[in-house]
């Protein structure tokens, strides 16, 4: 076999976004609210791509569009899957998106949304169970990660509903990190954490980069951006759309 030149992995992006826009059409108010527009970004394996910009610039919307929690209004989001194929996240089927969420795409949202009444360690273990691990294997890994994130052992068996903001955030992080997705979306992962825990999160994020995980993250703290980001994209608030046309106004009245 002729040896082929190895392409440095940095040159193959995992995600390429072009012309992404999101606006909300609120029927009751007969209004269109722009959230982000003309977003273009490229993310590479092993790199952290930071989204920065003022509140209202649509940073969270970009992450939610990638994850399909929001339906993008325009644009392409080419995702390079592990098997080498490229899919447009804006257009793949719901089933394909669910499959990607189980295997390659992770999201640590600002707030923990989880099944109530379930112990923290099982909340964290869930993504692994969905991938087919047994409960005990998954919980073992969950405990390991909770330890690394400084969550006291006495909390592991309790449902996170009563936890403090910082504790919930750590459970949330652990749940997002446990399955080691190929692309991880992080929405202010350290917002409510103390210095010690933030330092641990930074350590973990660095380890993830080493392992080749691509991350697109929102941070408010410029120090964190400086410490972790390989690329920074600064979003500007979208231009406000023209006022509703007279025709629309007539239609509603």
């Amino acid at each position, binding site marked *: 076999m002729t040896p082929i030149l190895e392409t440095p992995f940095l040159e193959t992006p995992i995600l390429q976004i072009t012309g992404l826009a999101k606006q909300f059409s609120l029927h009751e108010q007969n209004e269109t609210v722009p959230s982000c527009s003309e977003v273009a970004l490229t993310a590479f394996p092993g790199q952290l791509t930071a989204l920065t910009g003022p509140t209202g610039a649509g940073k969270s919307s970009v992450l939610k569009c990638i994850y399909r929690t*929001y*339906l993008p209004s325009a644009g392409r989001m080419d995702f390079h899957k592990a098997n080498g194929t490229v899919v447009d996240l804006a257009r793949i089927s719901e089933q394909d998106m669910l499959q990607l969420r189980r295997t390659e795409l992770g999201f640590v949202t600002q707030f923990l949304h989880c099944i109530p009444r379930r112990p923290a360690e099982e909340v964290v273990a869930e993504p692994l169970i969905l991938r087919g691990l047994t409960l005990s294997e998954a919980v073992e890994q969950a405990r390991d990660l909770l330890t690394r994130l400084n969550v006291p052992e006495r909390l592991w068996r309790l449902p996170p509903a009563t936890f403090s903001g910082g504790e919930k955030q750590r459970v949330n992080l652990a749940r997002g990190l446990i399955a080691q997705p190929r692309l991880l979306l992080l929405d202010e992962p350290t917002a409510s954490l103390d210095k010690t825990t933030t330092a641990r999160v930074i350590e973990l994020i660095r380890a993830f980069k080493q392992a080749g995980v691509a991350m697109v993250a929102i941070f408010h703290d410029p120090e964190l951006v400086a410490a972790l980001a390989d690329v920074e994209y600064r979003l500007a608030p979208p231009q406000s759309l023209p006022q509703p046309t007279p025709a629309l106004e007539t239609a509603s009245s």
Partner: protein
Amino acid sequence: MKPILEVQGLTRIHGTECPSCLDMTGPEHNTNVCPACGSIVAAANVSFSLQPGEILGIMGESGSGKSTVVKTLYFDQAPTRGKACFRDDTRTHDLFELNSAEQRWLRNHRFGMVYQNPNLGLNFSISAGGNIAERLLMNDLNHYGDIRRRASELLTRTDVMVGRMDESPRQFSGGMQQRVQIAKALATRPPLLFLDEVTTGLDLSVQARILDLILEIQHELDTAMIVVTHDLGVIRLLASRTLVMKHGRVIESGLTDQILEDPQHAYTQQLVASTL
């Protein structure tokens, strides 16, 4: 992976259908009663697919046609038109083309149903255990000891006190009746389960335990489910994808988190806004 169930153009009209029925009803006309002939369009052109082990939510207010969909699929009602294919290991069953014996076989062996009203799902003139035994007998389990053992296993699994298995479910609380229904539905380990407003009308704490049970079952047995409810909380907790129905039509469908956070249709926006 191939879908376990594919539904196309499912339509159910009560009354003498006229050519205007579909054109003059639906969300844009704000009615499901045909102004021309008075027929009721309970469901029109409902299409969706379901993957093995997936939970699909159907959400809507009463009269939206959500129960009609599962009732036709469970053969409680015949559709006016439409096609539904159920895929079972290697065979595909064209549900509305089957004869009644074949339909009964699928109902008893491969499907499970839990109704909002336990009266519909349970026979109150026999014991809780008897209700389950009935379904086991239809599945060729004939030995008395085996039946009793399996029935008590199922009741234990659904947290019904085995000591009460010889009582009529009439004497049970609403939550317990739902548990017996679930145990009965699960008796044959069906790959497809229909849940029609199973927690409606129960105390919140009882609701929560039933929902937990449903999720546990889905994890353990990888059962595909269609969950019909008007409760956004139930949808959020259980379903990975959701259809929203109004006046017999599917007005919107999508991933559940998208439906709840970025609803597209005016009605869904209203629905989501009114729960917060």
